[in-house]
């Protein structure tokens, strides 16, 4: 492989990305290859994401549930009998009777959950990454230990947390021995929320830490040296070198963090099962409507899904616009 690199002609390296004019000149075969190479993804996503999305969207306009959908009982095939009801599901969820308890309370909690979790994971991840970016003895050992939660499947560690947070579990034992109150983590509504945030932060920090550590390592050390020469304080260095140097990594991990946390299913589902109506975020609530009750309300569940997706798309486009504007301003 090295031979190939050395023998590479350096002439074309100046402009690896052809501009518009050159693009037109690109040979037909090149495009052909490009399309052939992306075809599998386009097909998989089209069939498994595109089609279900359209199908799911159609379901939101019906009153489908497990009683009137097509199903097979024994050898008997029962055709679907659900009906088209227009936007009734949306109206019902957003401002129908009891919409506060069914939607808006979960909506507020989902937003709070996302903001709190992303803030906590990001700041903890950044702090740990900065600690590990120093010349410290045993750095790689620390890294190995700190990434470990990521390696163990989430559902395993969540069950471990369930044991630790149970009444009379380790966490309350520790709190009790320190003379602190011992909340009922898995049954008291407020404590449930705190427990969910705690566990999700624990689950999410390794990803943030590894990504930010990579970002920190790509900041040239000379910048800090120069800053030190000029007598900059540690805070000034952090503010003016570290944060700008991390901007691209940060914007990506924060965006992914928001999307993943907003859609975080496993933590709440496994920590409380069907038990905690107050701690359900919109995703788990939608799942419960569709699969956690009888009869299964497919239409309402899908409507929640479409609402969730719209919230995320609106958020993402604002976020990207905001990033772009920041980028302009900092130039």
């Amino acid at each position, binding site marked *: 492989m090295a031979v*190939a690199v050395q023998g590479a002609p350096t002439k074309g390296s100046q402009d690896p990305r052809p501009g518009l004019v050159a693009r037109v000149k690109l040979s037909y075969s*090149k495009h052909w290859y490009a399309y052939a190479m992306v075809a599998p993804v386009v097909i998989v996503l089209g069939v498994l994401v595109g089609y279900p999305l359209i199908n799911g969207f159609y379901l939101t306009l019906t009153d489908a549930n497990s009683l009137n959908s097509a199903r097979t009982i024994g050898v008997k095939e029962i055709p679907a009998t659900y009906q088209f009801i227009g936007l009734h599901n949306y109206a019902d969820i957003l401002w129908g009777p009891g919409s506060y308890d069914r939607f808006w309370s979960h909506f507020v909690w989902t937003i709070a959950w996302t903001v709190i979790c992303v803030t906590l994971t990001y700041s903890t991840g950044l702090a740990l990454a900065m600690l590990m970016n120093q010349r410290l003895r045993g750095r790689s050992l620390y890294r190995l230990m*700190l990434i470990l939660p990521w*390696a163990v499947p989430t559902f395993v560690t969540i069950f471990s947390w369930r*044991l630790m947070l149970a009444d009379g579990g380790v966490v309350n034992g520790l709190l009790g021995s320190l003379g602190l109150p011992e909340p009922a983590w898995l049954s008291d509504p407020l404590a449930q929320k705190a427990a969910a945030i705690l566990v999700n932060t624990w689950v999410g920090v390794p990803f943030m830490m590894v990504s930010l550590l990579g970002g920190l390592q*790509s900041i040239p050390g000379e910048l800090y040296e120069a800053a030190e020469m000029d007598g900059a304080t540690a805070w000034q260095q952090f503010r003016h070198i570290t944060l700008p140097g991390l901007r691209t990594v940060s914007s990506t991990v924060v965006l992914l963090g928001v999307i993943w946390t907003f859609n975080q299913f496993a933590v709440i589902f496994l920590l409380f099962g069907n038990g905690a109506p107050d701690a359900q975020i919109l995703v788990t609530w939608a799942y419960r409507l569709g699969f956690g009750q009888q009869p299964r309300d497919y239409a309402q569940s899908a409507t929640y899904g479409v609402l969730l997706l719209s919230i995320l798309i609106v958020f993402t486009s604002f976020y990207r616009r905001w990033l772009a504007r920041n980028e302009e301003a900092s130039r």
Partner: protein
Amino acid sequence: MTATIEETVKTPAPAPRPARPAKARRRGESTPLVRALSHGALVIASLVALFPVLYIGFISLGPDKMDYLHPGQIFDKMTFSNYSKVLFETDFASWFLNSVIVAGGTTVFGVMVAATTGYAVSRMRFPGHRQLMWTLLVTQMFPIAVLIVPMYTILASLKLLDGYTGLIIVYSATTVPYCAWLLKGYFDTIPVEIDEAGRVDGLSPFGTFWRLIIPLARPGLAVAAFYSFLTAWAEVAFASTFLLSSGKYTLAVGLQTFVSQYESQWNLMAATSVLIALPAALVFYLVQRHLVTGLTAGAAKS
């Protein structure tokens, strides 16, 4: 993907350890007090990170299902009986095999598909590549709730419910967008000269990709494989919805059968958890050296 691209054209750290030459060392070599504090903070953080994992391992040694309530007593009666019970008296073996098939299939299929896409988007400027990248990001946002119902009905009509193929396809659809994104970033860090050299030597675009780029992209591929494997290995929602008979369960679903409404066999569950975590930890150990490099390339260059 956006205007942010130009900013990171400087190469991300080539390798984690020798990243900073001796010059920058002065900054890291702070006062003994700062160093002690750093060590203290990292030790505490490591304990918090490790404790839940170690705790479930410890609980798994207690023979009785209520032992988790008084863990102190486990010291007196440690035994591996839970493990033998799980291994020989439950469906663990078949669940394990199912998980290996599903996670392995997802990894192979997903990474292959993601790699070609990532390469095409990284190297070729074809009409529609921007829209493709945007689509890949948007699919990250799909809450399972919006997909799970239609996917269920689709799989049901294709008779793919309660089987491996359906799950592998579903999991690939969820992992491929992120992997393609990540690999695109990684391919961007590989000099284009290499492609050009391959082209000069008479390789087709696909030949260049397969013979030259894939071997160079191993760290990135390792991270993508790691991500796909863990996602499939640990996924709960799809698996518990789409798998109907206990012979087809993956570990994630099988594990839940120990903790039902009526009986909670926490000791067996703990032992099973440890057995599930071991292969994942092994995969993790194999790729962890590449993790920082691979992820950075993906995250920094998106």
